[in-house]
């Protein structure tokens, strides 16, 4: 119940949530699981890539877990970045463990990531969750005693890292993650929503040619 009320309070921008966090080491530890479940939920919502590439059920589950781990790492990098930026603006940065926990908690809205599976409006919902997550991070950093503009810079920088790791991670930022992704999914996830149309059209044109040749 403690984690749920903590999540509920922080997701509705209530400072009481951060008071709960400061009082309990167990809650700090539990908060680190939130990015994991957020990642798994997000991957379930975006599972179209896995389905397009026809991965097995075991590898499907492994991909969900792997995305969860990537999200924990992202939260950790985001927290480090926050501490670095904070040290440029204030003389005494907040405790690193609390910063990590606050950033991990800001992934709370992404627990609804599974709902992005909904057709057409799912993508819009995903962007809405992005905005909510950034706002939660900014509010949490500010609640730790950092000035508003520093909190804003930290949350935008963190969001940039997160977006990069999500959209271009396997190409630019984290080539290792891309390779592990291939290992977990069992094959390179070459088909995406962007290129599947071209593949189908090529196949249809080839089959048309074959059907004509048969005639």
């Amino acid at each position: 119940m403690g984690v749920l009320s903590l999540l509920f309070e922080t997701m509705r921008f209530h400072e009481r949530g951060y008071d709960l966090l400061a009082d309990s080491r167990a809650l700090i530890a539990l908060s680190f699981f939130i990015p994991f479940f957020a990642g798994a939920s997000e991957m379930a919502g975006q599972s179209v890539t896995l389905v397009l590439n026809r991965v097995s059920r075991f590898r499907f589950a492994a991909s969900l877990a792997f995305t969860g781990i990537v999200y924990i790492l992202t939260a950790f990098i985001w927290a480090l970045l926050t501490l670095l930026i904070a040290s440029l603006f204030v003389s005494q940065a907040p405790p690193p463990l609390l910063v990590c926990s606050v950033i991990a908690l800001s992934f709370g809205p992404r627990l609804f990531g599974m709902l992005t599976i909904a057709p057409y409006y799912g993508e819009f919902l995903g962007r809405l969750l992005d905005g909510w997550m950034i706002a939660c991070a900014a509010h949490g950093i500010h609640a730790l005693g950092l000035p508003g503009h520093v909190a804003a810079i930290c949350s935008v920088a963190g969001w940039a890292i997160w977006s990069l790791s999500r959209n271009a991670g396997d190409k630019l930022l984290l080539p290792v993650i891309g390779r592990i992704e291939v290992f977990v999914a069992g094959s390179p996830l070459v088909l995406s929503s962007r290129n599947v149309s071209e593949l189908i059209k090529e196949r249809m044109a080839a089959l048309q040619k074959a059907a004509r040749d048969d005639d």
Partner: protein
Amino acid sequence: MMIEHWALLSMLLGAAIFLLAGALSPIESFAWWAGWLDEDPASFPERDAEAFDGGKEERFFAVYLAGIDSIAGDKTTRRTERFLTLIEAAAPEVTIVSDVFPYAPSGRPLLAGPRLFLKTWRALYRLKLRRRSSILSNIINLRNLYQVLVSADHRYGPIFNAGAAHVILDALLRAGYDLEKAPPICIIGYSGGGQIAAASAEFLKAATGARITVISVGGIIASTPGVAALDMLHHLYGEKDSVQRLGAIMFPERWGVFPYSHWNLAKAQGRIQARCIGAMGHDRVGGYLGEGVDEDGEPFIRKTATAVAEVLKAETAAISACAQP
């Protein structure tokens, strides 16, 4: 107080079912693409040699995609049958194909197994036939509406629309469509069928190389890549049809602020033409296929059929003129 609680609980349950149904709606497309339905999505429809009428290969083909109340391609309502008969009478040079169920990528009707909710769909269909419980039979509309959104989705759309194109092509080949000569194809899409007609054009064009025209009858169409593949989209609408206006509102890429969207580019290039055909609404008696009458005394169903036939005749005439040496 107790009743209020029950009402609230029912509303919450209804909302939960609504959201869950939406979240689960892409799964049929997933299953089809992944090959879980014992069908190979990469196979090419084969021509039924017995059904092929050798005299028809030069004809202009039109495929009719029903609205979201459709349950199976071969279970058309009396209104639909009459509508198609009127079009055939007004444009006899066109072969009309109507046994297509467009709301499943496999083309498998809701009444045919294996389907998880097969018994439910059959029960709802029986209710619909007896004209009972319109609320329950609206579940069919909701299910098909979600498939329209799957077709419009950037992520799932490609696989759903490829499936729909397969189903359309299959029906065309059964009707004697000649792939070698690839005569022009027109898809008539009523309501949600308009979206599937426009979206599947991309793959139908790749498979046939033919000229593809869509006639949307009060269609609710998103700005999908299929619109870019269309040679022409004729959007016919009724003055009192507020449902078709939803398409311009609920699909943001059709808004004027996105001038480079597929829809707005096609519109700027003159490939989308909208025409008001009368004072009809979207469905029922006062709808496109309804028996209601316009100010001039002409039934709406006849008015809609005449407008569709006019477009078909204009298309065939233009193509014949181009084909003349």
